[in-house]
């Protein structure tokens, strides 16, 4: 890869390289152990094979149009910090029409707003901080809570050697949010993280590291967005959700990158005994989105509810792979992913329920439904079961359907114009999933987002 050093330019290099790792690390002022970890990750990246289309997971994914060597590996370091008030008042992207709100102080437990590689603003409820709750960007966590970061960052949920793109992420992570909730602390209001990308032609790396200690409870809303630009960009997200015994987490992620972005997400949750995860993934933006989302049900009596809503239009390509990994007895996983498509969009869903030998009394459910709104859109759905225990209940179902003309006619016969009728039907398609998120703000956001997509 070419590595041209341009002095005084905000972005020093093009393409990913060892030099770029060192340049990023120096500019960020990483401690040595972070720099060394980045270099070790870079070595992993160089050693690991690129995903091949012979791999089942990558079979339907065409990466030829992704030009990593033309990208700036990082951008927008050292932007000025902005107060939250100013962010809200200036119609900041996080508060633009149709985006999730930053929320006022009484509507959140804390907030981190990042743009490109810089944190613009962050706060956390002081009474929570007094109880030991940590909510901050990863740089701050590296500085103030190095022991926790060293212990959890890409070690347990998504290890550095997980795959090639994860290794690249470990070498080049720039933004990132860290949430730590100590034992038996329960937080009802959401922690909100906003990751935005503004620099054209650059890569952006977002990272969410959530650690809930025994009996802790939290709600995390993770939003990615950028305006659509001409130059291709690359967005690499890693999400690590670590739930100790009896911990409960609600995690909502909204991906709304601009249509120039190639987005890669790797998310793994690990659940200890009796832990409960309720997650929702909303995929709206990007040109290309490859999402790998999995729950390791490591403890007994754990519960993972995994919901997904995606809506692809134009030439968008969304590829969702899910993993429900049952490793202990008496655990329940309940997955429902719904996708609508229009234009010449293409989606792939592939889900695996894997039950290990000792995981008796597993109750696993997996449902994927696709609503195809145009004759040029195409959805594929591939459900899989892999069961090594003999006393389990596993069910899965997949459907690909179109809007029925009889439904449209019925609504039209009641005076509702065709486009509105279609919107009503698409909202109805997603409604059962939306109703499973008992948070009015999120429900309202989803309904509006779906309405906009239908009308586009």
């Amino acid at each position: 890869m070419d590595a041209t050093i341009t002095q005084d330019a905000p972005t020093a290099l093009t393409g990913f390289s060892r030099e770029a790792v060192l340049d990023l690390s120096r500019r960020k002022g990483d401690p040595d152990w972070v720099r060394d970890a980045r270099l070790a990750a870079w070595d992993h990246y160089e050693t690991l094979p690129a995903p091949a289309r012979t791999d089942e997971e990558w079979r339907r994914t065409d990466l030829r149009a992704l030009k990593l060597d033309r990208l700036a590996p990082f951008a927008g370091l050292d932007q000025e910090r902005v107060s939250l008030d100013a962010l809200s008042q200036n119609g900041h992207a996080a508060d633009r029409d149709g985006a999730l709100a930053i929320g006022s102080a009484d509507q959140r437990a804390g907030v981190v707003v990042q743009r490109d590689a810089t944190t613009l603003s962050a706060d956390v409820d002081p009474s929570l901080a007094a109880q030991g709750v940590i909510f901050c960007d990863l740089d701050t966590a590296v500085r103030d809570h190095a022991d926790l970061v060293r212990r959890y960052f890409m070690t347990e949920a998504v290890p550095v050697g997980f795959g090639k793109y994860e290794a690249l992420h470990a070498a080049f992570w720039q933004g990132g949010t860290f949430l730590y909730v100590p034992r038996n602390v329960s937080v009802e209001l959401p922690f909100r993280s906003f990751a935005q990308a503004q620099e054209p032609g650059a890569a952006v790396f977002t990272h969410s590291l959530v650690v809930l200690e025994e009996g802790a409870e939290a709600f995390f809303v993770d939003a990615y967005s950028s305006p659509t630009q001409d130059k291709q960009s690359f967005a690499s997200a890693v999400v690590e959700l670590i739930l100790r015994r009896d911990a409960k987490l609600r995690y909502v992620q909204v991906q709304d990158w601009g249509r120039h972005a190639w987005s890669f997400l790797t998310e793994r949750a690990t659940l200890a005994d009796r832990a409960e995860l309720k997650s929702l993934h909303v995929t709206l933006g990007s040109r290309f989105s490859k999402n790998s989302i999995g729950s390791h049900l490591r403890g007994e009596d754990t519960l993972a509810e995994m919901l997904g809503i995606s809506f692809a239009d134009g030439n968008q390509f969304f590829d969702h792979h899910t993993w429900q990994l049952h490793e202990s007895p008496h655990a329940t996983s309940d997955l429902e992913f719904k996708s609508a498509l229009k234009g010449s969009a293409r989606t792939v869903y592939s889900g695996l329920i894997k039950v290990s030998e000792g995981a008796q009394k597993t109750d696993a459910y997996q449902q994927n439904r696709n609503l195809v709104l145009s004759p040029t859109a195409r959805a594929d759905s591939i459900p899989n079961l892999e069961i090594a225990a003999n006393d389990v209940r596993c069910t899965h179902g997949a459907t690909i359907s179109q809007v029925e003309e009889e439904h449209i006619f019925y609504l039209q016969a009641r005076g509702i114009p065709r486009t509105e009728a279609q919107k009503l039907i698409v909202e109805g398609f997603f409604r059962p999933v939306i109703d499973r998120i008992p948070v009015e703000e999120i429900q309202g956001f989803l309904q509006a987002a779906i309405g906009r997509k239908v009308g586009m």
Partner: protein
Amino acid sequence: MSDTNTTGAPMFEIENLHASIGDKEILKGVNLTVNKGEVHALMGPNGSGKSTLAYVLAGHPSYEVTEGAIRFNGEDILELEPDERARRGIFLAFQYPTVIPGVSMANFLRMAVTNVRNARVEAAEAAGGTAQKMTPREFRRLMKEKMALLKMDDAFATRYLNEGFSGGEKKRAEILQMALLEPTMAILDETDSGLDIDALRVVSEGVNSLAGPDMGVLLITHYQRLLNHIKPDFVHIMMAGRIVQEGGPELAHELEAKGYETLRAEFAAD
């Protein structure tokens, strides 16, 4: 509605209507006129084309009209989309109401009422008059009132459109929609089918309370039973895609006594 520009014309006029599905002609020249305030019953054996006529009047896209006309207040409505027809005041109560998962009754009704009423307000304004659009509060009050009229539980509004409804509930829901949309031309397709005697009474009372001097009604039914509850002014009998006999209410009784077989022998020859 705007019937001002067409003085003297009948309200609803079907003239020599031919319609096909695929290559199959189902309606073979139907003539029928409904004036304001009139209740017409359309009877006939299964397969005679009654439901096809209902669908064609409402604008179902599967049927192609090959000949003839449908005029509403003097306007040819054949080229109008189903929703445009509904906004002009035509209502079809479906024989088999469609189940639409995830769409709540309340949300659906509000959308339907908003579209139809707003169109009416705009039409009134265009004609130089004034009318009020409905506020959400007024809508809720009206919905409650009409639900009470049809003896429907409040919980109904939160359920998904026709999902898990019994036959009787579906038919009540159809009449509820009619009550909220206040059509000037109502076509009721086999609204009595699948109803027990109590439900039939509730539904019939609902229709009777809505019918009035400004509304035309076309009741499509296989049996005389419904006509004991809703009294028609005129009865038409359809066979093989045509109206073969017309008369007053006595015709329905005659038909009940003789049965369709006698008629079939007379008219099915061609």
